[in-house]
């Protein structure tokens, strides 16, 4: 177990906490993909699953925060991989080819918040949002979307 956490702390720039007691590892956006690649190589597919992808718009800092909530198995501990993207150009490497379970999360985050996952062929507008909003280029969950 400790070795999995070591892997996360290796990439971490900073460690934080989300209540209740979920450790947050803040890492650089370009390190997200190598981190999960290492995790799969060293511990295998059955050692974790990605539960949720949460994007939060932070217009005050000009950033979009992207959190991957990862559940480590078999001890079922939830940890958070957090990264900050530039709000004007939110681009990050996709994980969909190595962890297929992020398919729904990435499509949804793209549709609602406008984060572009480089290399994900399934991204499209209208995954959730109705087309009249999608055509205007509005991302509903951005704070200045006005919907």
């Amino acid at each position, binding site marked *: 177990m400790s070795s999995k956490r070591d892997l996360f702390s290796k990439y971490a720039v900073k460690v934080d906490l989300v209540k209740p007691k979920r450790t947050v590892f803040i890492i650089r956006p370009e390190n997200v993909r190598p981190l999960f690649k290492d995790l799969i190589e060293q511990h295998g597919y059955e050692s974790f699953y990605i539960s949720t992808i949460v994007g939060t718009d932070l217009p005050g800092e000009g950033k979009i925060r992207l959190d991957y909530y990862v559940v480590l198995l078999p001890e079922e501990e939830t940890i958070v991989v957090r990264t900050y993207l530039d709000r004007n150009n939110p681009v990050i490497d996709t994980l969909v080819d190595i962890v297929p379970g992020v398919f729904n999360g990435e499509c949804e985050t793209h549709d609602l918040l406008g984060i572009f996952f480089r290399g994900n062929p399934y991204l499209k507008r209208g995954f959730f949002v*109705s*087309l009249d909003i999608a055509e205007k280029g509005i991302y*509903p969950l951005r704070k200045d979307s006005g919907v």
Partner: protein
Amino acid sequence: MLSRVESAERSIKARGDYRLIRYSPWLLHFNTGACNGCDIEVLAAITPLYDPERFGVKLAPSIRHGDILVVTGAVTKKAGERLRRLYNQMPCPKFVIAVGACACSGGVFAKSYNVIAGADKVIPVDIYIPGCPPRPEAILDGIVKLLKLLSEARVGDKCEQ
């Protein structure tokens, strides 16, 4: 504007049509984006405990066979189009029951950007059944009230409009 004679004739004719429906109305259940609460109550209302087949009420397999459209759920933008299309496909005379707060007025979702709100914004509704979700008894009550209105020819048929 119709003359009085004409409208009286029409109402007599319509009453004859309604009588026929009254004996065995076939329901068509359509979900426009509900949370499922109303759907399981509609489903519960057709199970043995409540058994609306006593009144001849039956779920229709297709919209073309339906007499009464049962709408549940807040009408989302895309579902609104479908709802209108579905309503136009129904044979006359046709009636609509809105089940639950969401179908009646949008409920808690009325202010969302993707929701038109109640079903009456899209199609004419004949009976509103409030509740979140209404009990199966309340749904039966609504159906029986509609049948009563039909037998007294007190609801107008919206077909000609």
